[in-house]
C-alpha cells in the first residue's frame, strides 16, 4: 500500500492544482495576518473559510482523481495487488497531499508572523487538525460517490450536491426546523443534527476550544451545556473520526463486488 500511496502522492504533488491550492492558502494566511494584525481574529476568519473550503476541495479532488486515474487503476488492478490496497493507497495519497498543502500553506505565514510566541498556537493547531480531518472525511465521501457512479458527470454532480447540502443547505433546513418547532424541546434534536454533519461538528469543535460564546450559536450552546467543554471536544473529535471510518468501511465493502 505504501508504494501506491507514494506514487499517488507524488503524482498529485506534481500537479498544478496542488500548487494552486497551496498558493491560495499561503496568500490567504498572509493577507489575513497583515490585514487583521491579530492572530486570534485571523484564526476565526480562517475557521470560517476552512470549514467550507476544505470539504469542497477534498470532494472535487477526490472525485476528479478517481475518474482521471480510472484507466491507470485498471492497469494496477491487473497487477498482483489487492484491490483494497490500491484504493486505500490512492485515498491516503490524495488526503495526505491535500493536508500538506493546507498545513504548509497556512503554517508558513503564521510561523513567520511569530506564532510560537503567541498563545494562539493551540487554537491554530486545532484548526489545522480539523482541516486535516475534513480532508480525510470528504475525500472518502467523494470516493464513495465516484465508486457508485460510472458516469462521471453524474458523479461530479452528486459530489457537489453533497458538499452544497452539508455546507449550506443543511444549516438552512436546521434553522427553519428550529423556528417551526420552537414550541417543542429541541435540545436532543439539535444535538443529534449537529453530530450528523461533519462541517457543523468541526465548527463546534473549534468554537468550543476558542470559547467564544457569541459565535457558538444554538447547537454549540446546547452542546456545551450538555457535554461541557472538554467532554464536548472529545466527543466531537470521536464523531469526526467515525465520519472517516464509516465511508472508508463502505469503500471496502463496495470494492468487493465492483466491476472495472
Amino acid at each position, binding site marked *: 500500500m505504501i508504494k501506491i500511496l507514494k506514487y499517488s502522492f507524488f503524482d498529485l504533488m506534481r500537479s498544478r492544482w496542488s500548487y494552486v491550492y497551496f498558493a491560495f492558502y499561503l496568500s490567504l494566511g498572509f493577507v489575513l495576518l497583515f490585514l487583521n494584525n491579530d492572530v486570534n481574529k485571523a484564526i476565526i476568519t480562517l475557521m470560517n473559510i476552512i470549514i467550507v473550503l476544505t470539504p469542497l476541495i477534498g470532494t472535487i479532488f477526490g472525485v476528479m482523481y478517481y475518474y482521471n486515474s480510472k484507466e491507470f487503476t485498471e492497469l494496477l488492478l491487473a497487477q*498482483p495487488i*489487492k484491490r483494497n490496497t490500491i484504493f486505500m493507497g490512492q485515498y491516503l495519497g490524495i488526503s495526505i497531499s491535500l493536508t500538506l498543502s493546507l498545513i504548509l500553506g497556512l503554517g508558513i505565514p503564521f510561523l513567520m508572523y511569530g506564532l510560537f510566541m503567541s498563545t494562539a498556537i493551540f487554537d491554530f493547531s486545532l484548526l489545522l487538525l480539523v482541516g486535516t480531518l475534513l480532508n480525510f472525511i470528504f475525500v472518502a465521501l467523494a470516493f464513495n460517490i465516484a465508486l457508485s457512479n460510472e458516469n462521471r458527470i453524474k458523479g461530479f454532480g452528486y459530489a457537489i450536491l453533497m458538499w452544497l447540502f452539508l455546507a449550506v443547505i443543511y444549516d438552512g433546513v436546521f434553522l427553519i426546523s428550529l423556528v417551526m418547532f420552537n414550541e417543542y424541546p429541541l435540545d436532543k434534536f439539535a444535538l443529534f443534527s449537529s453530530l450528523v454533519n461533519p462541517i457543523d461538528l468541526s465548527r463546534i469543535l473549534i468554537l468550543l476550544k476558542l470559547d467564544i460564546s457569541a459565535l457558538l450559536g444554538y447547537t454549540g450552546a446546547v452542546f456545551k451545556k450538555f457535554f461541557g467543554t472538554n467532554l464536548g471536544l472529545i466527543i466531537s473529535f470521536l464523531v469526526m473520526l467515525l465520519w472517516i471510518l464509516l465511508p472508508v468501511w463502505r469503500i471496502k465493502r463496495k470494492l468487493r463486488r465492483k*466491476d472495472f
Partner: protein
Amino acid sequence: MIEISNLSKKFGKLTVLDGLDLTIGKKGIFAILGPNGSGKTTLIKSILGMVIPDEGDIRLEGETVMGKWEYRNKINYLPQIANFPANLSVKELIEMVKNLRPKAANDKDLISLFDVAPFLDKKLGNLSGGTKQKVNIILTFMFESDLIILDEPTTGLDPISLIRLKEIIQREKDKGKTILITTHIMSFVEEVADEIVFLLDGNIYFKGSSTALKEQTGQMDLEHAIAKLIAKE
C-alpha cells in the same frame, strides 16, 4: 492451462456472458474474436479478477482464481486503452510497475526495440497515443509469465512497431507461452493466431483453426468468414 466453466455475467439487464465454458489446454496463440459487445473484454477481465462474475468458476493450472490476487503475478496483461498518470515520466512508470511485481524485469531490450529511449524522461501526459501504446507494450512484455493477455494490442501502432510487436508475440510463443489476443484486425489474426475462439451472445460459437473456420463457412478469407458467422445469427 485455463479452465472456465459456466461463466455468467450480467450488467444490469444486459447478459454479457451466458454460461460460457472454455478450456485452453495447449500453449500457443489464441485469438478471441466476436462482434462489439460480445463479451470479449468481460471474459478477459473476469480472468484477471477485474470483473466479478455472477456465476461460474475460472481455474488457472487447476487452482481457482476467484477472490484471489496473488495469481496475477503469473499473468501479463495489455489493457485496451493506455492511459497513465499524466504527471509521471515514462521511466518512473516503468520503475513503478517493476516495483509492484516481485519478479525480474527485462525492460532495456524492449525500450531499444521500440525506440522509446528518447521519451524516457518525458511526462506521460505529453506523449502521443502511439507512443503510449508502445509504453503499454513494454510494461506488458517486460516480465516473464506463462499467460499473456493482449486486449487490442495493435491500436495506434505505426507499421514498424506493428512488425516488432508481431516478432515479440512470435518469440513468446516459441518460449512456450499461452497468449490470448482480442482484435478486430483479421489480417493480424491470420498471421499470428493458432486457434480462433469466436464469441457470440455471451457464449463460444466457434473454436478451431482459421482454416477450419473458412471451410465451415465456405469463405475464401477470414474477414468474410467471420462476417458470415456474425450474420448467421
